[in-house]
């Protein structure tokens, strides 16, 4: 009975239903099993798997990580076995995860996105697809699909065409106008948006006269970028009606609530797990307490409440 009066934290992203509004950020959580000794995976809304590509990728040269003030720079370079080996060796292991399992697809051409999405989404173990369009494009350095409206649209449309499962498209903050990209991606058929991927950055080793990352530049995550991510969610929430998974530097329930009040329906937690693997638990508990203390019966009641021109009914 006491249970019945607990605030409802379930979230729908398209057809995907999450018991808790917390997704573990792609690339930060392996496939979930790495964290199983430290947290009950059933306490997670879902795990977004490490991004997979059409062909195997060796990944970037080390070092791939640099810690910066309140942040983490990474340049992993999408190390992964490629979709064939992934389907053969890895995916079956995800069947018993007690939370949603969301495949993440990265690519270097529109066709890549369609091909990998189709093959991955065909597997029962995969509950939904996240399209990582924020990884480097072939050709121009630093350019990504998420930075080019027409590429973002094409990749989304291509993936949409090959699956009925929930399609989350992950946007990059490294653009002049993220809301414009969001609108285009919504129109192209995305069911939800993940906002944001990492912010581009660099750190230089002043003793050795070289960038600290093997890949020279990388992506900044963690609390340092939280204000950037909250604003991105705020602006995207004014532009689209589909739900948003807000992420960037979340470590506490209050951090998560900033995103939710800005207009996110759920939150992503990546780097926060590196602070403490119990962060996702603490976030859910804290949100529940917050809602209860304010007399709300569901998380959905407060989505976007700090954002006056909030567009959605999520």
């Amino acid at each position, binding site marked *: 009975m006491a249970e019945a009066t607990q605030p409802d934290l379930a979230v729908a992203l398209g057809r995907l239903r999450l018991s808790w509004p917390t997704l573990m950020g792609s*690339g*930060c*959580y*392996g496939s979930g099993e*790495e*964290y199983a*000794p*430290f947290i009950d995976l059933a306490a997670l809304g879902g795990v977004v798997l*490490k991004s997979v590509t059409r062909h*195997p*990728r*060796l*990944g970037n040269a*080390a*070092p*791939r*990580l*640099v*810690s910066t003030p*309140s942040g*983490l720079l*990474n340049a*992993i370079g999408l*190390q*992964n*076995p*490629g979709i064939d080996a992934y389907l053969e*060796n890895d995916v079956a292991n995800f069947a018993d995860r007690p939370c949603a399992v969301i495949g993440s697809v990265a690519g270097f051409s529109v066709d890549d996105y369609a091909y990998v999405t189709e093959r991955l989404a065909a597997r029962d173990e995969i509950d939904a697809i996240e399209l990582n369009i924020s990884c480097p494009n072939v050709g121009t350095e630093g350019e990504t699909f998420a930075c080019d409206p027409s590429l973002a649209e094409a990749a989304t449309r291509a993936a949409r065409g090959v699956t009925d499962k929930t399609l989350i498209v992950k946007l990059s903050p490294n653009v002049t106008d993220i809301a414009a990209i969001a609108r285009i991606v919504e129109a192209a058929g995305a069911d939800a948006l993940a906002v944001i991927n990492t912010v581009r950055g660099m750190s230089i080793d002043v003793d050795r006269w070289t960038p600290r990352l093997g890949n020279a530049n990388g992506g900044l995550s*963690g*609390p340092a970028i939280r204000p950037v991510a909250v604003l991105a969610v705020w602006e995207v929430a004014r532009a689209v009606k589909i739900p948003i998974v807000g992420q960037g530097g979340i*470590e*506490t329930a209050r951090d998560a609530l900033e995103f939710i009040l800005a207009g996110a329906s759920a939150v992503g937690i990546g*780097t926060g*797990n*590196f*602070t*403490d*693997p*119990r962060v996702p638990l603490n976030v859910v508990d804290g949100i529940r307490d917050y809602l209860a203390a304010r007399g709300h019966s569901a998380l959905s009641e407060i989505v976007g409440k700090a954002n006056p021109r909030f567009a959605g009914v999520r």
Partner: protein
Amino acid sequence: MYTLERSPAVHRTVVSDRREPVPGIVILGLHVPHLASITLPGQFAMVVPPSGEQAATALGIYEAEGERVSLMLVVVGPRTRELAALQIGAPLDLLAPLGNGFELDALGDNVALIAGGVGIASLLLPAQALAARGARLTLLYGARTAAALVDADRFAALGAKVVLATDDGTRGHAGFVTELLRALPKHAFSGLAACGPSPMLRAVGRAAAYLDIPAQLALEETFACGVGACWGCVVPHAASSVGTPVGLIRAKRAEPPARESDRFCYARICKEGPVFWAHELRW
């Protein structure tokens, strides 16, 4: 059963004792019921700084006995600064034990332990285990300066021959500890176990190849997750051992057909390591 017992977990500990042999180097004793008994020599912990403002930090498990483990830490940045300031009674959470320890049996009965700086922290448990099975021990221990040479007597007490080196010449050999190694005859030891900064470990690896001694290296790198989830902490490794994409060491040498030793993959230091066979690294 064995794996279950040894499996890592979140351990809630309390600082039980604290020693600061030199300013900036702190040894934190932690009261923790079920950790020491499952810790293997060479394993590490991800330590959660209590403020919640910093990522967890990787620290070798220095001592492990009964209901006490200890960590030795050198203050280099915000995380180690926060941990170094902890006082007796403070709670501290660890993810532990993590990674694969040394394969001590494969090192024979005349082992040299080679420590660079705080690398010493990952070598006491191996020294104890080796001493317990009667191996002859030599400790080659280098640091910036005499004051930073900590606890060498702990190794002497285990019967190890201790040879010291300092960069500034304030104690022992003036120069790198690896220089001492190069001066030895071939096969001078049956095995080497080393921990320290990467440039030192590379030098140990080269010396080991030259001396024809099997060597295990415990690597230190920037970690994020520490549990194998983020693929951030990699080292180029012989292709065979890990099931990830394989490339060629030097693209330009790809044709004519590459030698097997040019094929490599990126192995995770936190998961496949932190201890690797020197001859399997491709760095």
